[in-house]
């Protein structure tokens, strides 16, 4: 198993944290290797940002993704920037309210599978917009099974502030159980 993932969005959406939690779940709570790298400009809030994560059952030599297997896009810009370097059966997960392309396959990017989720809206329904990243992480876990639900929840518990563990786990469940209409 060797999966190359990109998490992308604006600074402040918790993009890097989402990648971090996923990598931690793989390398600390499962017997996998994970390498997380990140791109960000001089400004961190509001600017485009992305986290690149490689998860593998073998040691990871080259630390950067070469072809993306899983693209998680929480902004239109992030989606646009990263849609050209996908594997043929790549999975794209988007926040459907923020990434216009989510609505359908009109862009015709290969036979790519797009899975939209109203992550920010779901997070708002839980009272905090900032947990949209964790909602998405739940959805990613259910969809890709890259790591087990249990490992991901362990990684969340040890990565977010103690006072918000409950809210984050709730957000994770919300995303994990999300059924597309």
């Amino acid at each position, binding site marked *: 198993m060797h999966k190359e993932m990109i998490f992308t969005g604006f600074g402040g959406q918790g993009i890097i944290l989402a990648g*971090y939690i996923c*990598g*931690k779940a793989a*390398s*600390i709570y499962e017997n996998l*290797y*994970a*390498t*997380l*790298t*990140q791109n*960000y*400009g*001089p400004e961190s809030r509001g600017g485009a940002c992305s986290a690149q994560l490689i998860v593998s059952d073998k040691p990871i*030599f*080259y*630390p*950067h993704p*070469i072809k993306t297997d899983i693209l998680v896009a929480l902004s239109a810009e992030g989606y646009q920037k990263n849609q050209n370097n996908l594997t043929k059966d790549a999975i794209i997960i988007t926040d459907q309210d923020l990434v216009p392309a989510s609505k359908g396959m009109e862009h015709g990017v290969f036979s790519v599978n797009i899975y939209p989720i109203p992550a920010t809206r779901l997070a708002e329904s839980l009272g905090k917009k900032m947990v949209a990243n964790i909602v998405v992480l739940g959805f990613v876990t259910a969809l890709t099974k890259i790591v087990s639900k249990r490992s991901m929840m362990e990684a969340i518990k040890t990565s977010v502030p103690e006072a918000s563990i409950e809210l984050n786990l709730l957000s994770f469940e919300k995303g994990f159980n999300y059924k597309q209409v």
Partner: protein
Amino acid sequence: MNEKDKSVLTGAHFINGDVACAEGAIAAGCRFFAGYPITPATEIAERMAERLPHLGGTYIQMEDEIASVTAILGASWSGVKSMTSTSGPGFSLMMEGIGLGIMTETPCVIVNVQRGGPSTGLPTMVAQGDMMQARWGSHGHYEIIALCPSSPQEMFDLTVKAFNLSELYRLPVLIMADEVVAHMTEKVVIPRPQSLKIINRRKTTVSKDKYMPYAAGARIVPPIAHAGDGYHIHITGLTHNEMGYPQIDMETHQRLVKRLIDKIRVNIDKITIIEEDGMNNAEVIVCAYGISARTSMLPVKLARKKGMRVGMLKLVTPWPFPEQKIRKISRIKGLRRIIVPEINYGQIALEVERCVAGRQKVITLPHGGGGTHNVEEILDAILDN
């Protein structure tokens, strides 16, 4: 015990290279950090600021990098293992202090997380352009030790090693990291305290009236007495005699400079670390360090799959340069060329060329910075006939 009160965080962690570096320093016994935050080294300072107060240590945010390096020299003379971290612009400012550390034989560790230069360049992006500055940046002729980590795990391991070398040979030891290794997050396993090898500086055992701070004897490295130990010590950047007093004449200077250089040259085989893989019968060797050693691993593997005999030579300690080892490698039968990918326009490649002395073709694979070599660039250079 609360996790934050432990000096060695034994266990597996998913942390970036900067944090791993700070943890390596703390595990090695570092209890004083003076610095001025700068991308991409800021997380080292942040981690030290968070951790040191719980361990009885001191974190000082200084007014600039000149003050930072000077502060760690002073702290070291009070008997505390000390460190600072910076990136290119700050490293330039530290040059004078590094020379002072060499001349006064002050153990300390200086981390340079390299980013794109010249000048303020690319704050958030990688380069390896400071390798010759690390070697020659301060004035006067001296020898230096520099280590280049290729992963967050090595950021931990080599920081411990850097402290040990600085304590053993009494000089500033440089960790020449880079933005990618520093910001890359991977599993870092921190061992139990009892399985960490920690070296502490040799203290003087002579009586106070007989002590001469710079009398080194056959071991080349003089034993130390700290300020406050009750010994009479005098520390100066001027050429000094064994009492530590300025003595401005040719004989004293020649004796002192030769000893400062011999400390490293005589012990070069004990200091240098290289990692070799598939060197026997290699027709092509990729020689790299830091992140470029890491990015070379996949192309080397792919070229081997195509039937090429490719050796991988990783310079863990580019300084002192492992001259004898490179000379020996250059005599491998059937070897056709040595490729040196580095994120600059050819710095360590010059050293390789010097030691290979025309016996092999040395090919520089330059990169201006802002990213790492991609797989094809290195693979093409290996496969190129």
